[in-house]
Structure formats: C-alpha cells, structure tokens
C-alpha cells in the first residue's frame, strides 16, 4: 500500500509535518501520527459534505442554489465584484500562500477590503506586534531550550493536541533531554482546563483581567512588588509573586498565548503588554512568546499580505493602495456598519464564526463562497465555487504559528480547481469586464 511520509497536517497552526498517509485508489484510507483533529481534517472529504458542483442562485437570496459550470459561476462572481462599490474579500486562511497571493491581486483590482480570519481570532496579535514587537523564537528552539512553559489563554490539549509532545511541555530537546521532567508549566486561564490540570501553577484569573495581571507581573519584575494589593485579578498576590519567581528561576521561558488573551477585555493591549513583560524579564532571563494560531495558514495570510501590500490584515484597497486600520477596515467593523455591498470568502466559514448581526447582514448582500465543503456560509452565498483542498488535493506553502513556512503536499488527484486557479480565473474575468487586459 502506498504510504506517503512526512505529510503536513493542515488543521491547526502546529503544522505537524510527520503524518503518514495511506492512499488506495485515490482515496485516503489511513492517517498515521496525526491527532484526532488532524486525522479528521486530512480525511475530511469522506466525513464532511463536499460541494460537488459550482452553484448560483438565479433569483435572489430566496431562490435555491442551482448547479452550473465553473465558467458561469466565475463570471457571476466577477460581475458581482466589479459592480460593487465596497466589496470585501475575507478568509483565505485554510489555503496556500500561492492562493492568498492571487486573492491580494483580486482585492487590489476590485478596490476591495481584504481581511483574514484573524479578524475574529488572532488579529490582536498583529496589533500587539505593531505596538511592541514580537519577541519570539522557532518552535524547535522552544523544544530544545525551554524549561518553563506558560500557556496563557489557550488550551492545547483540545485545540492543538500535539503541541505539547512535539514542541512544548512533553517534548525532549537538546537541553531538556528528559522532556516533561525538565520543564515546569504555568497556565493562565479563568477556567481549570484540561491543560491547566497538569500545570505546576494555575493562575486562575477573573475573566477579562489579563491586562491587570500582566501589569502586576511587570511591576514585580521591575522591583515594585511593594505597591501591589493583596489580590490581583482575583488571584492572591503571593501566587502572582510565585509565578514571577518561577520566571526568574527559569533559564528559558516560552509564553504561548491564545484567544483567551486576544479576544477578552483589553484585547491587543493585553497581548502587547505581555510583549513588554517579555522584554522586562529579558534583562536577566531568556523569555519569548509565540501565538497559538488556529487556522493552519492564518499566519501565512499575514505574511503574504504584508509582503505583497504592506499590512497583515484589514487592508482597504478602495483607493488603489492599501489603507490599514483595524477597527475601521476590519471585516466585522464594516459589516456591523452595513457598509459592504458585496462579499467574497474563501477557505473560511464566516457563517459559523461571525457575530449574529454580521451574518444577518450577509443574508442581504451578494455573496460568493469558494470552498471545498458546504457549511453555514453556503446558506447565504449566491455563488458557490467548489475548490480542491490545499494540502490534500493540491500543494502549496503554509506558515506555522512560529512563522516557519512548510510546503504542503498533494496526496490525491482531484477534478476540482484549486483556490489559486479559481482566483486566477476570476481575476481574468474582472479584467475583461473592466477592459483592463494584459499585465
């Protein structure tokens, strides 16, 4: 049986690249080494409802989706985008960088807003980087060196199941040859999560008080413990002091931070204050931070958009060159204001993840979906274009949560077009409609 080795898993930002996939008769029959989530993703087409054919609604939102040709769907998509004054292109995080590059071009040429799923997850991490920088390291460095792991507002046991064995608490590295025995773990979370249950110290803070806790930790590190009250963020001062002592005793600390930091009160201000905590601690100790990214290539979206157009998300091309201001140009910022008059999404499911108010509005405007699977977004889409699954049916580049690019493999043949091909064809059609040939 043909087994493809060292396959890159395209579920989460861990981008594990050691999967062993068995393919028989162009079907994936076994996925070795993957976690539950990765296995389900890799075998997805046999578990989820695939979009089989391009479809369009011919008579408005209330009419049924009808099957059509790729050409017809692509033409319709181009017509919608060209007619729009304030179109938005959203998603593109569970696809290849090569597709994202095309999505940038399409957004430029249609004067669109252009945004990633970071709008509802790790966008604040990018904002924190703008404020304070990103003192980070590669996951292999973390594996080899770190003797203190802090999970802040994330729960890898459930969201990134192999993280701990491959990169963090349980991983054996050059200076941590005994794995778990050589490491300590702190968890910062309002809930006693399954990750927290294994921690050496749990800082169970009140919801939404991350910023306050970082402030206290920085005050301790900078020699001002005396001013702190007896309780901080719902945690006894002594416990916070203990956490600071653990950081000072460690040779190499990694803070992995998740949406518990980025999507709670204070949002990116908490994240950027963690960055300053890292800088403060670095006067005497080695400390870094790494975001626990969800969608496997949301990091790649940020990278591609930044090098192609200058900014990692929330780009507004309406005036021919990107303007960037999350809060003003982010997807939900403009959807909530009902400013958008056309919507295209790919490799993401806003229908499942957006606030109710945004979704209600999406039912009112022309919407285009490019995806391999039917999902809640399909329900309000007027044009539905089936796509090959990147990393399974076509190859391409993805960026791990530590910004390490890895090439995804093609495992099986498909008759579906890739996101890259679909976008290339929409661009060509847009140029035709606008009378802009060439280039």
């Amino acid at each position, binding site marked *: 049986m043909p087994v493809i080795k060292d396959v890159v898993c395209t579920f989460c930002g861990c981008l594990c690249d050691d999967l062993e996939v068995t393919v028989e008769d162009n079907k994936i029959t076994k996925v070795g080494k993957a976690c539950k989530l990765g296995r389900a993703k890799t075998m997805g087409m046999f578990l989820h409802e695939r979009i089989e054919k391009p479809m369009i609604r011919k008579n408005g939102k209330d009419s049924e989706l009808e099957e059509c040709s790729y050409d017809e769907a692509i033409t319709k998509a181009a017509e919608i985008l060209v007619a729009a004054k304030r179109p938005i292109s959203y998603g593109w995080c569970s696809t290849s960088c090569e597709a994202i590059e095309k999505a940038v071009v399409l957004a*430029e040429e249609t004067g669109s807003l252009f945004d990633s799923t970071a709008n509802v997850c790790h966008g604040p991490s990018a904002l924190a980087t703008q404020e304070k920088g990103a*003192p*980070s390291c*590669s996951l292999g*460095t973390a594996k080899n060196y770190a003797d203190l792991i802090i999970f802040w507002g994330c729960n890898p046991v459930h969201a990134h199941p192999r993280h701990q064995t491959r990169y963090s608490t349980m991983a054996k590295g*050059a200076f941590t040859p005994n794995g778990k025995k050589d490491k300590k773990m702190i968890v910062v979370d309002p809930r006693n999560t399954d990750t927290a249950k294994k921690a050496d110290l749990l800082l169970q803070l009140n919801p939404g008080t991350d910023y306050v806790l970082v402030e206290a930790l920085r005050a301790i590190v900078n020699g001002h413990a005396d001013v702190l009250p007896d309780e901080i963020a719902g945690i006894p001062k002594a416990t916070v002091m203990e956490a600071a002592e653990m950081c000072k005793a460690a040779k190499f600390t990694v803070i992995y931070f998740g949406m518990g930091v980025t999507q709670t009160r204070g949002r990116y201000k908490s994240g950027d204050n963690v960055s300053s905590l890292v800088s403060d601690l670095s006067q005497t100790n*080695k400390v870094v931070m790494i975001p626990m990214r969800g969608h496997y290539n949301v990091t790649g979206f940020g990278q591609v958009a930044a090098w192609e157009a200058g900014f990692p998300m929330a780009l507004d091309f309406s005036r021919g*060159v990107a303007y960037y201001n999350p809060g003003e140009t982010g997807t939900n910022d403009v959807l909530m204001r009902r400013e958008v008059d056309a919507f295209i999404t790919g490799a993401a499911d806003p229908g499942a993840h957006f606030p109710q108010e945004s979704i209600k509005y999406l039912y009112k405007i022309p919407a285009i979906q490019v995806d391999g699977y039917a999902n809640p977004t399909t329900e309000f889409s007027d044009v539905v274009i089936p796509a090959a699954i990147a990393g399974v049916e076509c190859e391409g580049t993805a960026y791990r949560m530590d910004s390490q690019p*890895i090439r995804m493999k093609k495992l099986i043949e498909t008759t579906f077009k890739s996101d890259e091909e679909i976008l290339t064809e929409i661009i060509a059609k847009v140029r035709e409609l606008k009378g802009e040939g060439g280039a």
Partner: protein
Amino acid sequence: MAEMIIKNGVVYDPKNSVDGEKNEICIKDGKIVDNVGAGAKVLDAEGCLVMPGGVDGHTHCAGKINTARIMSPHDMRYSPIPGLSGPEPRTKLLRPQVGYNTPNTHAIGYRYSKLGYTTIAEAAITPMMARHMHEEFESIPILDKLALVLMGSNWQVMQYIQDGDSEMLKSYMAWALLASRGYGVKIVNPGGGSNWTWGKNVTGIDDKVIDFDVTPADILIGLAEANEALNLPHSIHVHCNNLGVPGNLPTTLDTMKLLERVKASQDRQVMHLTHMQFHSYTGTSWMDFASGSDQIADYINKHDHLTFDMGQMIFGPAMTMTADGPTEYRNARMFDAKWSNYDQELEDAGGIVPLAYTPQHFAHATMWSIGLELALLVKDPWKVMFTTDNPNGGAFVNYPEGQVLLMSDKKRQEVIAGFPDMTMDRISLPNIDRELDWGEMTVMTRSMPAKMLGLEEKGHLGAGADADVAIYDVKPDKVDVSVEHEAVKKALGFAKYTIKGGEIVVRDGDITALPKGKVYWVNAYENGIVQTEKDRLITDLEERFKKYYSMQFSNYMVEDAYVPRPVEVRPEVA
C-alpha cells in the same frame, strides 16, 4: 528585444578600463556583445552618464523584513522622498506601493530599478527560513537576486569545528547552500547568536561559545578556510562581534588580522566586512566614543585580503534588522523602542528595532561621519562597497544622497555645519576634502560589489556581461557635482533609462516593463563533495533532525518550485 545599441553615452566601465568615454554599447538577447546588426534599435543617451546596472551586495530586502513590515504600519505612509517612498495607488501596469524603510516587495523592485540598480543580495537568511525569502524574491519584480546564508552560530558548523572535522564542515556548508538555494556564507556576530538563545552574548573573538568548545575566532577561521577549500565565488561575509558598541575597534582589528593567515582560492578578498561604520568606534562608552576610521582605513590601505562596505547612516527614521539578536535587544532597551526577536533553532538569532537618527545628536552625527570617512580614507575604491546596510543605516532610496555626499565636500560641510559642537573632536571628516569621481563611484556601486561577490556577468559592460545598464540625466563633462549636488542627487534617484537583461524597465524615472529576475545560487555540493562524505553528512543530519529540529528532514530543503528562474553556479572543484 533582440538587438539594441546605446549611442552618445558617456560610459563608465572601470573593469574594462573605460573612464567616461563616448563608447557605444551593443546588446543582443539580454547580453552585452561587441557588435550588433544595422537593424538594432538605437537608444540615444544624449551625452548622459552610462554605467553598468547597480549591484547592492548587502541589503535586507526579503525574509526578516516582513516582520518589520508587520511591526510598522506607520512606515507605510512615510514619504520623505516623493516618487521613491510612501503610498502610491496601482496603475494598469504597477501594483500598489507603500512604505519607506519597509516597502512592499513590488515597491522594492520598482524603486531599486528607478535608482538604476538591477541586482541585490539579501544579506542574512537562515537555511530554515530560506523558503520564505524565496517567496519574497519571487514577488520582487525586475531585479536579479541572491542570498547570503547565516552560518556563524549554526550548531552543525560549531560542532564540526569543535571536532576538527573540516570535511564535515565543508560538506555541511555546501549542503546548507543547496538546501537554502543560497549563494554565499554570512557570519553575523560569530558565536553570539548561539549564546543569545540563553540571553547572553560574546564580547570578542576569543570568548567561549556556551554550548560548544569554540570561539568566534575558531568559527571565522573554520568557515573561511572551508569557504576557500570549496572555492566558493564569494568569500565569507562578516558582521563582526560587538556591533554598535563604543570601543569595538579592537574587535574589528582583531578580526581583520585573524584572517591574514587564510589564503584566497581565487582573485578576490578572503573576507568581506560589512557595515564597517558600526564597527569603527573608539572609547569606552557613549560619552567618550569617537571615530576609529583612521585606524581601520590605515589597516585596509596596507592589506589586500579584505573588502568592506560602509553601512552609511542616513538621518531620519530607520528600521534595524539583524541576526545580531543581543544588539537589537540592547537597542530596544536603550531607546524604549519596540522589539522583535527570533531565535531560529540550531541556526541563528535575529532581532528588529525601529530607530531614528538625527543630526542634532552627537552620537548619530559621529556615526554618519564615520561611514563617509571610511570610504574616503581608503584609497582603493575596489576595497569599498557603497551601502547603508538597508534599512539599518537608512532606506535604500537614499543611496543618491549617500553617493552625492561622497562626491561633494561642499555638501558634507553643509551637513556638518549643523552638528552639535560635541561632535567635532570625535570625527575627522571636516578635514577630508576628497571627492570621488564618476569612475570611483561606478566601482563602489557596481564593479566592486560584483567582483567581491564573484558575479562575472554583473558590474561591467564588456562582452558577455548581462545587459544591465543605467543611464542618468547627468552630463559628466558639464556638471560640477561638488556644487550641483542636489540636481545630481535627483538624477541618480530617477534613472533616464534602466535596462535590465536588454529590456528597458525604466524610462525618465518611470517603470515601463516588469520582467522577472533570476536567482543566483551556488551548488558546491553536487560535484564538490565526494559520495562517502555526503553519506557521512546525511547520516549525521538525519540524527540531528530527529533530535533537535521541529521539522522533518525531508521537508527542510527549499523545493525547486520556489526558484523558478535559477542560475546555478558550480564552483570548480580544487
């Protein structure tokens, strides 16, 4: 684009001893040739300055710069040099452009081309991150590119040097260039990157690296000797220890002396020292810090085994990015500035910090002076490359400013007049009246970088060279650069013509075509390493990957898909 002839230009081609002569330049199929047919397209240069296309042998333009972009959305709106910076909407031909120190990839290609530059060398990439760099390379239009690969804090390198296993060291270096599709060997703060993973540094070339029984000196000598044994086209390219530290002069001199004992495998230096400005400081602190350029220049004037580049500072906002992690952390704390850091497993460190340089601060004024002093005090222009260490000392769009400073004492004195008094006893620049001529400028910006890198088809206009040509709206026989420096600066910023591979890509300062550039890389592995040594290396690497890397060995090497227009250079096997 088959045939073209450039007539009526005043040509500077120092490699071929052409010094401001009205020679015709013939182009056929992207190359310079001796003759073309009668039907060749005629380009009338109208008495203007003609040079080979510029070669930037040390710039940070792909890879790490992307983190700097994400850190600095505000930079995207800076536009101190209209036409070469800031936001510009898309056109039917051009993609949108943004930025000053950290422009998007398209802007990098357009703006270098407008300056008449056609080849750039990314100065620092780890093998593991090379895939990212190549993605950006592919997105930068027009220019030819190459990459220098970081090896000065690499575990394999340090292990094999510690073991005294020069064969494994050679094999690994050749393999790392193959794996990254890289061109040459870069050494940044040797050993310091490894120590920085523990939050420490080294303070000189004889310090110990924490985890290996080697010193920076051992790393420098080991890599230099292996570099020559592999007969690589470029020498080792070195960023010394103690960058930016007052009193770092002895470290720099020690490094230069250390390399005297290494023999070059071909007609070039055995070491290129980069951004020398940042390494030429006397004193013991910022209070008594002063220029050490005279001592550096004196040594270089008396020795022929090395070349250097300036790392000229440009006043205004800059973005520092380097594999020198501890330096960036120090900068960030000193200026309360934002700070990014990246420790790349087994390979190197790195950091990014935005800074701003001002002529009102004596330290910055002194640093600005040192870069110019070095270039003016070293007699032989073939030892000097013009750089700003883009964008560490300043953004590359300021090259015309820096170049004119070298050509006009008057302009220098105008700037110096605004310096605080505290600067004056720290610098020697006010007493240096040398003004470089066009031939010397051509050497420092074209011919020397090409020779230093071993790029035979670049940096000159002889038959066989790539047809990369820059024509500027300057009449060398009529203009007095010393006085008319502002007009010359403008002309150098917006080429009358830039020709890339025989195609006109800039006309009157505007982009006219967007060919895709080549990527040069060196394959010293295929023929250069015998099979038994390859086997020995691969066995060891597989073991190291299993234990220490976070990526599978089979997924590590840059795939061909990322280098669609490669130029593979295979060194002769000694």
